[in-house]
């Protein structure tokens, strides 16, 4: 039976990033366990966006750091993750302008270079945009996107070079605890002795936490995405309007989604309502893509907490750590969350103090931090 210093459950960006930063800290005797293939959950289903335009101190500071780390990943990982700072162009109606002015003020104080721009400037950034009914936009040129599959693959190669064990198509069935200390992680194929477990299981996180009696306040909301056939890249920013968002990947496909206002569900099926609604919304903003064909449509989960912030760090069970509940922002937060959890494991403290406000205790104490800018 193998002994591991840390067992990470979940082979999405959160789990792999945590393993990557643990390895960089020198901890190599660890394992990542993924019940399907790497990136098969929310990472591979995400909308690719990476933004700092949030409305709370915690989110803004974590994302400012994450953008810095995305740049490092682009330069240092064994292959490109296609991180591109094309900006987030958040289109606003007149009635929304004042609120976003406030958000931008907070973002600026915390060192993010967002600004409010007028209608004409919107046209300068994306000439094809239909600005009817739009007063202006909140624009942050250092926001951007990256390519999920290349990111997963780049991390996989990096971990392989560090000699880190990755198990795919292997499911954790039980976490054995004795006298309040984690002893073993049992999968459907083998058992690992360990005292440290990271729950990075995405939409399976609640099930994993239940194995050790930890109840997580998570709800699953299905969100759908469509991609078009490829054309030469002409759209670098992520464009947001209400619930609608879209950009173009480096491979030329327009990717985007919107919200159908669904109740929580366990189903990951695509629905017939999504495409017409998405098409209507996107064509009202960017009519010139009307003749592009849709290539694929799929669904993923936003794993949502009551305050739309993730749950990071320790629990009442020593050695059981959480990187869960990203509420639709798990991909963009991946680098910083991995680094935070790794430093927490190695040094017992989060290296960004704001992250301490995001642990599980806030739901007991009622100190929630409400995020107002949620898309899709």
């Amino acid at each position, binding site marked *: 039976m193998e002994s591991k210093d840390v067992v990470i459950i979940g082979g999405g960006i959160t789990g792999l990033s945590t393993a990557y930063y643990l390895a960089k800290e020198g901890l190599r005797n660890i394992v990542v366990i993924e019940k399907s293939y790497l990136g098969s959950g929310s990472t591979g289903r995400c909308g690719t966006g990476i933004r700092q335009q949030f409305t709370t101190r915690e989110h803004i500071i974590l994302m400012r750091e994450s953008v810095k780390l995305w740049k490092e990943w682009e330069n240092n990982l064994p292959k490109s993750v296609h991180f591109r700072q094309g900006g987030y162009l958040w289109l606003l109606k007149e009635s929304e302008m004042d609120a976003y002015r406030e958000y931008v003020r907070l973002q600026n104080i915390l060192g993010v270079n967002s600004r409010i721009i007028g209608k004409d400037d919107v046209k300068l950034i994306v000439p094809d945009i239909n600005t009817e009914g739009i007063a202006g936009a909140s624009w942050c040129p250092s926001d951007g996107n990256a390519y999920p599959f290349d990111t997963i693959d780049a991390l996989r190669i990096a971990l392989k070079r560090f000699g880190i064990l990755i198990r795919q198509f292997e499911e954790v069935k039980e976490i054995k605890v004795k006298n309040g200390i984690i002893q073993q992680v049992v999968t459907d194929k083998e058992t690992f002795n360990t005292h440290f477990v990271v729950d990075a299981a995405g939409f399976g996180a609640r099930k994993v936490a239940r194995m050790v009696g930890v109840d997580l306040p998570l709800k699953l909301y299905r969100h759908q995405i469509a991609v078009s056939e490829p054309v030469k890249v002409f759209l670098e920013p992520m464009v947001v309007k209400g619930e609608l968002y879209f950009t173009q990947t480096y491979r030329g496909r327009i990717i985007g989604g919107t919200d159908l206002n669904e109740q929580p569900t366990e189903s990951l099926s695509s629905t017939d309502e999504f495409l017409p609604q998405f098409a209507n919304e996107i064509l009202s903003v960017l009519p010139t893509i*009307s003749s*592009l064909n849709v290539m694929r449509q799929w669904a993923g989960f936003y794993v949502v907490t009551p305050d739309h912030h993730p749950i990071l760090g320790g629990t009442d069970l020593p050695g059981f750590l959480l990187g869960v509940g990203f509420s639709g922002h798990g991909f963009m937060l991946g680098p910083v969350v991995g680094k935070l959890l790794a430093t927490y494991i190695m040094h017992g403290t989060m290296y960004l103090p704001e992250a301490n406000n995001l642990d599980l205790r806030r739901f007991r104490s009622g100190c929630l931090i409400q995020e107002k800018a949620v898309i899709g």
Partner: protein
Amino acid sequence: MNKKGAGMREIKSHPILHFDRGGQVEFSFEGKRITAYQSETVAMALYRNGINVFSESSKLHRPRGMFCAIGKCSSCMMRVNGVPNVRTCILPVRSNMQVERQHGLGEKPSGVVHFLSPVEREETVTIIGGGPAGLSAAIVFAENGVKPLVIEQNPLLGGQLIKQTHKFFGSKNEGAGIRGIKIAKEMIQKVENLGIPTLARSSAFGFYPETDTLGVFKENQYIKVHSNYYLFATGAAERMIPFEGNDLPGVFGAGAAQTMMNIFGIKPGNRVLMVGAGNVGLIISYQLLQAGVEVAGVVEAAPRIGGYFVHAAKLRRFGVPILTSTTIKRAIGVARVEKAVTVSLDDKFNEIPNSEKEWGIDTVCLSTGLIPSVTLLAQAGCKMKYSPYLSGYVPIRNKNLMTTKENIFIAGDVSGVEEASTAILEGQLAAYSILKKMGKDAALQIDETRSELEKLRSGPFGTKILKGLEEVQYE
């Protein structure tokens, strides 16, 4: 060059077919005027006018031409009237169209399309695919008082039958001794006479299992189809095999060559190397000869000819060599195939050193098998299984062609690649099975159709199919 090309590629006389090409229209290709026939698709008009290269590949900028000619691949994509990525092989010509080559990925579209608002259709039975299986099913439904909706991606109904000029074997009921084109004509006529509603040039693009809805797109209209029963008769697509230069213009699926010759009256080339000596390869080689095209030879990787003896014998009579244990290694050319190299194989399919042979040809046709078009069925959640005898992943089904979902049935090549006469019978069987489910008395017809199918499969070519069916049939 254009004029000469047009003369060279147009079939002037044919022993079986007469081409009713319709009047002439003009459109623009790269700023030059092209004369086309009204009945042609854009790709056919270009090819008849001597144009081989339709686009450049996106990474290595290699020349690309048409490959499948039936809208199943993406080899013929061009920019048409400012719209990128248009499959020109299934786009009818219109006068004054602006057609341009794509260099790598297409540029973003320039015009704006105005979509019609989505419509919903309530149907009893929906048939996806208007080939032999789909049409024979549609006829059975209509004759039993149920009007099905037929959805077809191509502009024409009839599937691959409309280009099959050869006579069919098998039993009289399924048209033995009659040419495929005639069977198709009769079926299409019947569908029209019975007033069966059909949507041609319509893509069934997605099946949504939560609501059992079929998403269909026709021109600028999104159609949501809600149907009590679905019959998938989506056919199959040609299999590409790997060899150097397999993307050069002038490398075609054998079915594409057949489409060019027998529907549009266009010669795919002057001198052809056929890869694959199954029935498709042998029959199409003979049809190439009928169209006045030279067939340099047929190569077959297996140690023996796969198709019927009579088809092989016809070719040998014309002096066409059929080389077994031989496969294509390389196609060579700058903007089009100019030469090909084949190589001999040992009994383990390994290349024998120094056995290369060079062929002076301008066209390579691949008849290396078909793959069932099953993606919609997989989306629907039907359980699938891989069977090499049936040519790929196919849905698990019962003897009456019901999949693991009670409202979804299959017929024709999508259930396992076979041939048109069995496709016709499967279409009928699936239709009777659905009628029975609907409470109609169809038990007798089911038994009859099943025994007809058994008879057709009793020959040596049926053993493979029967083996496959053992793997994928339940109950």
